[in-house]
């Protein structure tokens, strides 16, 4: 294998790795969907508590989204650094 082929192989594998890393975003996606569903159900049962439910829902969604952002940061590091 010539060095040029090896270099191109590394670049190709890098892109495949980035794609595989971003597959893990399905977890936070499901989590945010379930959180929003639970929040909406809570608001529909008890409209007076809508303010408190909204705040807790946004907080929990931020936690779940942070996990997706970790995966995105790993993908960016793979793409743009090294």
């Amino acid at each position, binding site marked *: 294998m010539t060095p040029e082929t090896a270099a191109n192989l590394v670049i190709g594998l890098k892109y495949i790795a980035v794609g595989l890393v971003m597959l893990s975003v399905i977890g936070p996606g499901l989590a945010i969907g379930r959180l929003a569903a639970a929040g909406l159900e809570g608001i529909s049962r008890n409209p007076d508590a809508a303010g*408190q439910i909204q*705040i807790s829902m*946004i*907080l929990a969604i*931020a936690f779940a*989204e*942070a996990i997706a*952002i*970790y995966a*995105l*940061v790993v993908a*960016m*590091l793979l793409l*743009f*650094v090294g």
Partner: protein
Amino acid sequence: METTAPTKTKKTPPMWVLLVIIGLNILASMAIGPVMPHVQVAPEALTPTVNLPVLGEFALTNTMVAILIADLILFWMAFRVNRDLKDGDLHPKGLAGVLEAVIEPLYGLTEQTAHKWADWIFPWFASLVFMVLIANWMELIPGVDSIGFFHEAHHGAPVYETRQLFSIGNFELTTITAEVEAGDAHAESYPGFVPFVRVASTDLNFTLGLAITAVIAVQVLGVKASGGSYFKKFFNFDGVKEMFSKKEDKRQFAPLFAFTDIFVGLLELISEFARIISFGFRLFGNIFAGSVLLFVMGSLIPVLVDSVFMMLEIFVGLIQAVVFGMLTLVFMSMATVSHDEH
């Protein structure tokens, strides 16, 4: 005939102004095609590195310029509000009135979450929200990330062909026309590009620094609320003490409780450090991904598409600022609750 007092209506610009601007946009992108900007995680230095006595190597980076601009905006807001509130009017006009509509819900939220300590926590919460909000929304201003200067090509940095638009005396305005391929023979003669201002939240130093500050503030508040026994949350030897208790029923399962208490305490300690990473990377990842999205979309389709993503970025920047503040608020109010006994 109107019976109410005539209100001052703002005249919006007519529709043809918008169409002219879009037309100019199309002409400009047909004349000089858009070039994909170079994206890198580390911020670019504007000045050469100097060796400071205490700090070590130091260079002014373009994110530091953005942080300074955000600071100036915050100081201006603070002085304006101070001046507007001077006459003690209960219905403040001007900037104080606008900010009152923002600060009142924030203070209500703080009081709801941390009842007694709201007066201590609220400055932290509101300052973090405003600082991160201004730092996030700066990426929407035209000129940020796009106006900069050229420098000699470093090894490995992308270089660009340029074309001079006009020059007034000593000042010349040059634009980038294309990116030079990496394997080009004359690549050294082309310059590289560094923007003057880069969004502050895309710098890991800024986000991790804010995260470390917030977490240390949480610990300080915990010590202030519970004294030195705040650290018993992490090093929990109450179960060990109960192992030597005189009562028989307390001593039975005590070793099991002691072990779990110590383990849970260590887990809490580790999760405090994980909060620093989580705070820093949540803000960095959201805003960095947003700015890369704006770059890529702007360089693929130069007309109209970027505006849609800027609407998304307004929302994302606001949410990330509020979430940073709210998480700090929640952790601070959890730290004031004293350590429960079984």
